[in-house]
């Protein structure tokens, strides 16, 4: 009776019901704690995140094998149960309504992209590229790839392009983010080898961040800094008062692009004061005498004038480095994206070398990479280096790789590829006629974007392979190939600390979308070179091939059994040739490595003489300095942690979109705003010699008077940037171009 009454008579206060139940939590099991009952998993699995190079482990909540939610993985040695907002939202972009679900061909009459089947797409793809190849030769086409796909796909793509299809030129968007570090390490250490492990963040007593804003760009690395129990000095060198600069114990607000002067000036003070490790220098480096003589000219007075840092503070900084027992140097895009970036990175490496801050816990000259698999690209993409960090020009290397891959050595070109900027130049000169763009968005991200977008119209054939047909570049393509994304395929990423982590297939690719791996296999078959890739049956089979290619190299990973071992170990850092360490692997007889390992403990570098080289050059003025007509320097960079990679994926998440302004804004110093009559939040026109854009004024003291800052994720920004490149790494200098600003009516 009461039960019926309860049903019929609505309660005075409804403590429960359908709406309440929607949010009710149940114990999630699997060590997850309570989860929304609606989203209770029946299993979980761990994989690495597909955004940045931190390489966090994500615990995927599965129902019937399919991902329904995720949380940051507690056990993964990188992130200890944390993730940035992008990681938490990693699944959302996969179900975006604008996913490409079939190959799309541009109708030449209507100008629209129209769906076709894979058969037709592949016939067309191979016919067009073959035609160009036939008419204009092997140097007439190029691909522009990415740091966002798994290593096995990069390797297959690079091998297919160069060995199978017989083309020469290709590059990747990693040129835009870490080419400088790769070149700097290779020249200084003899191999592209970031020496550190994330535990170093926790073990330093002095951390120096140069052109790096980890609070925003790499929050999970900043987490490791905050776990440091040594009350470290945190030094930030950055023209802006960034979030990281706020958290620093010393912030050096240098003039943009004066970092090389600063670093040489510090070296001079350290050497002149005897605050260096002479034994270490003598035993492990070459070029010290020349370096000492070179830096002597960078007197504190001169450096102070160039950098805007007082002589006293220069001394204090040098003293801090000298007093530190475990000093680590960290740099990111502020260094990498510069007109003399390679020498700047090497100036940092030099400081670490002369003060003996390398190879020990809490030390190192450490480049924080950008993309989730930039490091995989550096070693295995077959672009700048022959697979496995080998040299295309080296006969023995070609022989070795050909042997492992079961191909003729003669199909491996001796010539290395043009860099990204040279490929763009090649399009201008009419030498590059066909372009295949994979998982990158050059029409948004390439420096001086307007010029790039003009040039691609000259191409005979532009193919874009992406998750979305809506990217700025796909919108210009003749043919769009629908790609499966992170989470819809298998493979491995290599993170900033050289950790190889696993990506698993936990979501269905929409429609006819295929993994980049499978698209490459299709291309191979339709091109007629499928036989060459008979060993490349699956991503894991490719992983085994790459292992064999790495044998004897500094990045030797022959000690890794396979994907299962990567899964069980929480990723494995290269090198791992097996054997030397401690714990028995749980399911096989293979030794598993310690979770965190660093390089150069023995002071032996990868040059033939075992020594690191001290490399340097005279600083050069920035190519487009502010002048009377364009009196401000435009700085670009990351505005929030919630945007990634021209926003192709992060822009699909409602939650992430709430975390940054929808429209472009520009940081302007209050005195400049006052002088120019720019009210806070007023519309401002920013003009460079190349283009102009509109942005909302954010009037703030955090940017210096001669500079303005606009986050790079607003597409208009790269229409303004000036195309200057580092001569060694060919990396674009995104953070320095002259602009004028004025209030809009």
């Amino acid at each position, binding site marked *: 009776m009461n039960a019926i009454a309860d049903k019929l008579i609505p309660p005075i206060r409804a403590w429960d019901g359908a709406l309440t139940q929607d949010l009710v939590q149940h114990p999630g099991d699997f060590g997850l704690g309570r989860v929304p009952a609606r989203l209770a998993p029946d299993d979980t699995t761990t994989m690495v995140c597909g955004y940045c190079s931190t390489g966090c482990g994500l615990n995927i909540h599965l129902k019937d094998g399919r991902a329904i939610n995720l949380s940051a993985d507690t056990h993964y040695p990188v992130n200890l149960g944390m993730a940035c907002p992008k990681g938490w939202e990693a699944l959302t972009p996969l179900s975006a309504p604008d996913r490409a679900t079939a190959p799309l061909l541009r109708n030449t009459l209507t100008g629209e992209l129209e769906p076709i089947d894979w058969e037709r797409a592949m016939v067309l793809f191979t016919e067009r590229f073959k035609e160009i190849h036939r008419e204009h030769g092997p140097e007439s086409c190029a691909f522009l790839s990415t740091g966002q796909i798994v290593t096995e796909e990069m390797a297959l793509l690079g091998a297919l392009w160069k060995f199978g299809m017989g083309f020469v030129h290709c590059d990747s968007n990693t040129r835009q983010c870490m080419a400088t570090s790769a070149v700097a390490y290779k020249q200084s250490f003899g191999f592209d080898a970031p020496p550190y492990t994330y535990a170093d963040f926790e073990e330093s007593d002095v951390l120096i961040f140069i052109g790096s804003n980890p609070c925003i760009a790499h929050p999970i690395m900043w987490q490791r800094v905050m776990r440091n129990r040594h009350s470290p000095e945190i030094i930030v060198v950055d023209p802006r008062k960034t979030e990281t600069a706020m958290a620093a114990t010393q912030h050096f607000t240098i003039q943009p692009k004066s970092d090389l002067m600063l670093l040489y000036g510090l070296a001079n003070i350290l050497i002149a004061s005897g605050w260096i490790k002479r034994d270490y220098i003598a035993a492990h480096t070459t070029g010290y005498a020349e370096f000492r003589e070179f830096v002597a000219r960078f007197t504190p007075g001169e450096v102070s004038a160039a950098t805007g840092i007082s002589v006293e503070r220069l001394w204090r900084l040098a003293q801090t480095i000298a007093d530190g027992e475990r000093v680590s140097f960290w740099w990111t895009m502020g260094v990498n994206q510069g007109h003399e970036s390679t020498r700047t990175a090497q100036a940092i490496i030099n400081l670490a070398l002369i003060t003996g801050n390398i190879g020990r816990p809490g030390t190192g000259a450490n480049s924080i990479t950008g993309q989730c698999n930039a490091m995989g690209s550096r070693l295995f993409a077959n672009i700048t280096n022959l697979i496995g960090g080998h040299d295309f020009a080296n006969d023995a290397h070609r022989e070795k790789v050909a042997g492992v891959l079961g191909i003729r050595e003669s199909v491996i070109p001796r010539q290395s590829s043009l860099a990204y900027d040279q490929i763009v130049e090649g399009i201008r000169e009419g030498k590059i006629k066909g372009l295949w763009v994979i998982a990158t968005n050059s029409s948004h991200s390439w420096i001086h974007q307007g010029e790039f977008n003009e040039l691609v119209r000259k191409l005979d054939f532009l193919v874009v392979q992406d998750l979305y047909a809506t990217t700025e570049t796909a919108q210009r393509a003749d043919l769009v190939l629908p790609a499966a994304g992170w989470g819809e395929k298998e493979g491995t990423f290599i993170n900033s600390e050289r950790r190889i982590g696993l990506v698993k297939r936990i979501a269905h690719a929409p429609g006819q979308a295929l993994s980049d791996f499978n698209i490459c296999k299709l291309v191979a078959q339709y091109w007629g070179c499928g036989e060459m890739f008979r060993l490349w049956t699956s991503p894991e089979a490719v992983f085994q091939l790459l292992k064999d290619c790495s044998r004897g190299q500094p990045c030797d990973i022959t000690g890794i059994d396979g994907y299962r071992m990567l899964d069980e170990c929480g990723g494995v850092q290269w090198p791992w040739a097996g054997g030397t360490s401690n714990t028995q692997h749980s399911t096989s007889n293979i030794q598993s490595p310690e979770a965190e390992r660093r390089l150069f403990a023995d002071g032996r570098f990868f040059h033939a003489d075992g020594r690191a080289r001290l490399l340097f050059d005279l600083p050069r003025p920035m190519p487009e300095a502010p002048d009377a007509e364009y009196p401000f320097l435009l700085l670009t960079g990351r505005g929030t942690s919630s945007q990634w990679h021209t926003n192709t994926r992060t822009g699909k998440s409602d939650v992430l979109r709430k975390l940054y302004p929808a429209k472009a804004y520009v940081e302007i110093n209050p005195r400049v705003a006052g002088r120019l009559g720019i009210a806070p939040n007023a519309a401002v026109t920013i003009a460079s010699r190349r283009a102009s854009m509109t942005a909302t004024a*954010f009037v703030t003291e955090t940017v210096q008077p001669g500079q303005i800052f606009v986050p790079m994720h607003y597409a208009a920004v790269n229409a303004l940037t000036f195309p200057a490149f580092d001569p060694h790494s060919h990396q674009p200098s995104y953070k320095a171009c002259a602009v004028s600003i004025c209030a809009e009516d």
Partner: protein
Amino acid sequence: MTMLDETPRTLIDDLLDEQQRLTAVERFSRKHDADGVPAQARFYRDLIPLEKPRTGQQYAFAVDLDACTGCKACVSACHSLNGLDEDEIWRNVGVLHGGTGEAPYQQTVTTACHHCVEPGCLEGCPVMAYDKDAATGVVRHLDDQCIGCQYCVLKCPYDVPKYSAKRGIVRKCDMCSSRLAVGEAPACVRSCPTQAIRIDVIDTEKFERALRPGETLVPGAFDSHYTKPTTRYRTTKPMPANARPGDAHHLRLEDAHWPLIFMLVLTQMSVGVALTLAVLSFGTSPAVGATLGMGSFAILQAGLAVSVLHLGRPLGAWRFFLGLRTSWMSREILAFGLLAGASAGCALTGMAGWLGPRWAVRYLSAIGEMTAPLAWMTAVLGMGAVYCSGMIYIDTRRPFWRAAMTLLKFFGAALLLGAMASAGLLHWAAATLDSAVAAEALGCGIAATLILVALFGWEAAGFISALRDPGSTDHRSALTLWNLRRPLLITRVALFAASAALGLVAASHGGIAGAIAATAACATATAAQIIERYFFFTAVIAPRMPGGVAA
């Protein structure tokens, strides 16, 4: 069928098939933590209290600003771990900035519900859909109790409750109560990479005593004395005096609440008509009582009907009496309920008074005698209801909605539209029912035009001075309208002018022409007041925690 079966499978077929196979579970080992203890507990154990709050204590968020560096993981993790709707967030991260050229300053600020000691949301809720948990102090929202009136959204000075049109209710942070209850950390606490968020137990009384006059949680936040928010923000860095929210200069239009706009304008018009009837109810033609009584009633019904559209789940509105003790929304519902009764009586007696003599039914005429006292009763109840309407907004403590402004606007609208509508109605009555009421029609029309001019003058003077004076309370509201809704401002001036001109036409014409002009004057004045009420809702500066850079 057989045809299909015989078609040889191509590589494309194989690859498309393979692409759809999910292999993670079968291919990789499972290494789940067997026991029920969440793996992450070892990292957050120190961030939640060991013991439950005792009497006189409650849970509170504590934020270490020195550790908050703006990654916003808390926002995203809260969303994922609580299974919120795709566009729903319960936490937010803003920024404070300021300082000097030598010492620039910026500080990110993570914020969610402050689980106030005296929650504005709870006090405003007409149906007791909020509960401040006696044991934990957590301010919980009862989703199934909510009627979606969104008054809590207006009452909360921290912009915490979020309305979901899809669900017809608001939802908000409950400090992950069910997690805390079993010793697990809330999602934000668990997910902050730098451990900037923790849960403390605070002594409520001690906390209240420690509140200094004018204290705010952080610069730019609302006076903490209003709701006594319990979150504690700590920093060792000196905060410069000029620290201000990242969105301090951002002009935004708040929700228009269209059903409320129409509800307020129509109910106020109705009360105005009832008041006119009361004033005119001595010794005049029964046509006045019938026309204005019925008119007032019909307008009121329209206003009340449209107000229902504002509720996400109107079927639960019968519980309105639960909030009478604290909620002006409950009181308004009650007041309008009583008003509806009186208004119906007034309309019926008015009709009786008109029909009685015509049909020579004496008892109808006798009932008609009741019109005057009922008209007064309706007018008084109506003014009470308008006052309750006003108090709903005044009680939010938003400066733009302060008592003087809100009551003047609401009662001004009642007088203006009451006189305008009465003039229109009586003009029609004079033309069709009884020419004797032409005098009343003219009187109402003149009064309406005078009120119109006075109201316009007062508003225009206020607006211009607020726009010019950056120190004025309403400066940002005026700026918002000037920058974002200028065409509508101009439209409104034009409507005022048109209404005044039409009023003069009506005054100088009799018959149908006069009636049409008076109706048009009323329509334009009503349109002007609808725009005014749109400004009232959209140009209010809603207090909130510091926001991020806004563009």
